[in-house]
């Protein structure tokens, strides 16, 4: 399908105000905690204050006399009522047992739920929780993945026999030969990508009503992956998936992390059934920081990059330890997801990575904006920068020379992924224009000796979108996943109104608007005339197994399904109108709310009339039309994938690659290490835009997230396994006060592989981490240390100004 299939492009590609904002800005949205439910009980979890401990005793007797106490759920009950959640990893780590309350008589991270208590109000439930006494026997714990792989390290899951959840080697090309023959080899002992998260505005909220009459659990809450979630809960609770319904209404952000909602939701569901009344759990911010899902923390060791004397990067190798925390709740998919962008933005020919996913006694990781890919791309980008500085290449020219070039698309990477389109050199040129690059260099020169240092950095990243789920087989050949689909439904109601339902679950991306734009074009209506179902409902037929919002795919899969569904509806309208107006279906065009005969506007049928005939007077229609037409278009979009070559770990793993090239100018105070961003430019290329304003909004959001992660956000743990930033006092997510005015530009490289040339986007949060690390390095200069951490607070920058990391970075040749 091409752009022309959307009859006209009156609306697609235009900045249209978001339809959903009208209710949201008037505080008329319905978020998880807003839905009124009669007879509602409230759930509070009593969580572990230990990183690793055996549970000796649980005493809830004091709770029973408290006013408002409804009941509780204990680990022993959960052991009887549920099986462990499904695991993706192969043996031996598939022996991991993960349940909604601490499993196997142990807790494995601070914040792990041990008891779920219910009260008639949230306050009553809190009071009840405070009286629960859990006796623990502390056990040795491990919070550093490097220590966790040592033979004598404490084991997070005794039944596995080690702390390794997944171990594999990716080897494409011949890196050993490249390192042997290259003119230059840069070697770095260790780099570290830190833990942070997405901090959605709305923490998780789950309401469950168990309907005993039909043995069905009805869930309300933001769920980013409804069908997979029903399967996870169904298997754990030994309950038919068809009898678990998940409804999401307005949804205050996910960015990946809410994929893990099946864990608390299972406890809430069990309590609802046990106590015979609806139950709601409203997550606090501290709970969210403990267990709501951290981004993957990754250590890179023995990093080597091969470079020619002309400045061409041949490839690199490294060992990765990915700290997944105490449970593999979406992991170890991260062990393969990064390979979607194996080449990053560059023409690498050789890449070898030994990757291990490691358990530690920390909060479990979940997908987090740029999931698993931003870690690898940060490493590559950092190495590009280090190589340029150490070998004396201009960092701009070095990147330009090594970027995948516009004429090389579609570009096949070292592992068989296909980069669909792009123009990285033009994007970089625009990014440098945004920060007034030459003037910034002048500022930098003039700052010498003033106590302030100016640094300029570039961040190049890709947002791979629309997954081929066949990649899951690269971590476990027995997983029954491949390809990707999404569903969509468009129907005409009895009065001629047009309703759309998408399988995607919007959590702020403006799906109601973009869907309305493309449907309006196909039906000859305006977006205001399209009614898009808010949120999602797993029981509606619009969803397929992979439905949801994740992996930057809605612009491709969600819109693709809606286009296919609308096409079916268009055909039905044409059949009806043709039979009434005495024309052929092909002569019928849709315009201004009418079906009319091409070239003869007097022969027209309003949509209301079409609907009236079909719904109320089918005898007016020829039988063959009446039998076929229901004015409902239900369709799927199938992404064209094949199962990857498991032996060689090769194949096309994602359909689209949006690019983000960022550039920044920052100032470092030599006395305090404080960073001030002076200029920040971001250039996004996500193919054909559907709504430029929405794109720009998402680029701003992702950029702020990345800047914040680079300078402020860090989920650090102390030696005792306590999370040091379990609240917004200690975990600072950037606000407008921390930021400069962001400068935006775009490049449009339509994807040749997608319905309207659009690409998924919104996960470009990695680019600021790259750009800021590079700018700090540029400011520190050659006499200071090397930026080897993705998180750089003032104290670390002071350390860099004093050198210190130099010995871990070597130019071998």
């Amino acid at each position: 399908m091409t752009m022309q299939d959307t009859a006209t492009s009156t609306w697609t590609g235009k900045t249209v105000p978001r339809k959903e904002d009208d209710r949201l800005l008037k505080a008329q949205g319905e978020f998880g905690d807003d839905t009124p439910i009669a007879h509602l009980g409230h759930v509070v979890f009593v969580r572990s204050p230990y990183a690793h401990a055996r549970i000796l005793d649980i005493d809830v007797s004091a709770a029973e006399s408290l006013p408002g106490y409804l009941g509780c759920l204990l680990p022993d009950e959960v052991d009887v009522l549920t099986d462990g959640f499904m695991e993706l990893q192969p043996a031996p780590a598939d022996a991991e047992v993960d349940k909604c309350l601490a499993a196997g008589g142990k807790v494995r991270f601070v914040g792990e739920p041990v008891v779920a208590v219910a009260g008639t109000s949230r306050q009553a439930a809190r009071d009840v929780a405070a009286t629960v006494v859990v006796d623990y026997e502390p056990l040795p714990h491990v919070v550093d993945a490097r220590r966790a792989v040592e033979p004598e390290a404490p084991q997070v899951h005794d039944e596995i026999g080690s702390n390794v959840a997944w171990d594999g080697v990716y080897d494409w090309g011949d890196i050993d030969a490249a390192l042997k023959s290259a003119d230059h080899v840069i070697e770095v002992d260790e780099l570290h990508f830190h833990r942070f998260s997405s901090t959605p505005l709305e923490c998780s909220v789950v309401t469950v009503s168990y309907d005993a009459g039909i043995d069905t659990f009805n869930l309300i809450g933001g769920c980013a992956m409804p069908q997979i979630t029903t399967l996870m809960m169904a298997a754990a609770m030994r309950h038919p998936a068809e009898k678990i319904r998940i409804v999401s209404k307005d949804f205050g952000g996910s960015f990946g992390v809410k994929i893990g909602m099946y864990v608390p939701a299972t406890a809430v569901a069990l309590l609802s059934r046990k106590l015979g009344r609806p139950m709601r759990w409203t997550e606090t911010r501290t709970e969210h920081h403990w267990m709501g899902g951290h981004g993957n923390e990754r250590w890179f060791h023995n990093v080597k990059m091969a470079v020619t004397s002309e400045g061409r990067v041949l490839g690199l190798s490294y060992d990765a330890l990915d700290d997944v925390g105490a449970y593999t709740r979406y992991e170890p998919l991260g062990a393969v997801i990064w390979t979607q962008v194996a080449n990053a933005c560059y023409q690498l020919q050789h890449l070898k990575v030994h990757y291990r996913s490691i358990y530690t006694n920390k909060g479990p990781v979940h997908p987090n904006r740029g999931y698993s890919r931003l870690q690898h791309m940060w490493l590559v980008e950092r190495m590009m920068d280090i190589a340029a500085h150490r070998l004396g290449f201009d960092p701009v020219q070095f990147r330009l020379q090594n970027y995948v070039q516009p004429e090389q698309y579609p570009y096949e990477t070292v592992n068989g992924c296909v980069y669909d389109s792009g123009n990285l050199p033009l994007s970089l040129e625009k990014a440098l224009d945004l920060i007034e690059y030459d003037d910034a260099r002048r500022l930098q020169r003039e700052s010498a000796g003033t106590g302030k240092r100016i640094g300029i950095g570039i961040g190049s990243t890709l947002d791979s979108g629309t997954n081929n789920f066949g990649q899951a087989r690269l971590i476990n050949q027995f997983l029954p996943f491949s390809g990707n689909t999404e569903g969509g439904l468009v129907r005409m109601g009895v009065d001629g109104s047009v309703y759309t339902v998408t399988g995607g679950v919007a959590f702020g991306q403006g799906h109601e608007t973009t869907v309305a734009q493309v449907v309006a074009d196909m039906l000859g209506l305006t977006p205001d005339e399209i009614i898009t179902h808010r949120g999602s409902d797993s029981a509606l037929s619009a969803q397929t197994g992979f439905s949801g919002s994740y992996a930057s795919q809605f612009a491709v899969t969600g819109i693709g399904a809606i286009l296919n569904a609308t096409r079916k509806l268009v055909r039905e309208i044409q059949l009806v109108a043709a039979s009434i107006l005495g024309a052929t279906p092909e002569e019928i065009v849709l315009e201004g709310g009418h079906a009319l005969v091409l070239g003869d506007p007097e022969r027209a049928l309003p949509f209301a009339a079409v609907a009236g005939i079909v719904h109320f007077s089918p005898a007016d229609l020829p039988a063959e039309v009446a039998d076929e037409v229901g004015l409902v278009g239900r369709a799927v979009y199938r992404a064209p994938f094949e199962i990857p070559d498991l032996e060689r770990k090769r194949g096309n793993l994602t359909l689209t690659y949006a690019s983000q090239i960022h550039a920044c100018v920052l100032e470092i105070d030599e006395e305090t290490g404080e960073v001030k961003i002076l200029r920040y430019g971001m250039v996004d290329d996500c193919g054909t835009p559907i709504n430029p304003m929405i794109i720009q909004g998402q680029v701003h959001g992702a950029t702020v997230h990345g800047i914040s992660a680079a300078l402020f956000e860090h989920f650090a743990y102390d030696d005792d396994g306590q999370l040091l930033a379990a609240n917004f006092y200690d975990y600072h997510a950037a606000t407008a006060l921390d930021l400069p005015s962001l400068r935006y530009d775009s490049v449009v490289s339509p994807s040749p592989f997608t319905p309207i040339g659009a690409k998924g986007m919104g996960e470009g949060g990695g680019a600021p981490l790259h750009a800021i690390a590079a700018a700090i390095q540029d400011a520190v200069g050659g006499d200071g240390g090397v930026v080897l951490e993705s998180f750089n607070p003032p104290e670390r920058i002071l350390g860099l100004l004093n050198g210190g990391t130099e010995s871990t970075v070597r130019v071998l040749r």
Partner: protein
Amino acid sequence: MKLSGTFTTQASPAQLARLSTEPRQLEQVTSLRDVAVDAHGHIRAIFTAATPLGAIPLTTTIATDRADESSSRVLVRGTRGQHRVDVTLEISYQPTATATQVSWHADVRLGGTGASVAQRVAHDIARNAIDGVLQQAAGQHLTLT
């Protein structure tokens, strides 16, 4: 969190060394209630800490690791819901001409919610709590014996 304090009491070192194992004396401390000895021989009690947010009762276990007339080592664990306070308390007794000088050093570790927001106020709360219990228990000793 490392805390310390000193005070002088009329109790003898021998009397002080028994403090952490005698529930009758601890019962007289106003911030402790429901004092009992558990199956392991440890003292179990409800300790109510005075905090800026009000009185917070903690289920507390007091285990004497070592005690003689020169010093004691006491392990204290307090929990409330998902809060946790672990204290390793080293107490030394120095006789003077007219009394005993008690010096204590505590390694206080907060866990769970206590390690989050509460860390900002925990220093003063813990110091006052430890010092208060020790002084009162030492003073009560005189009353009881």
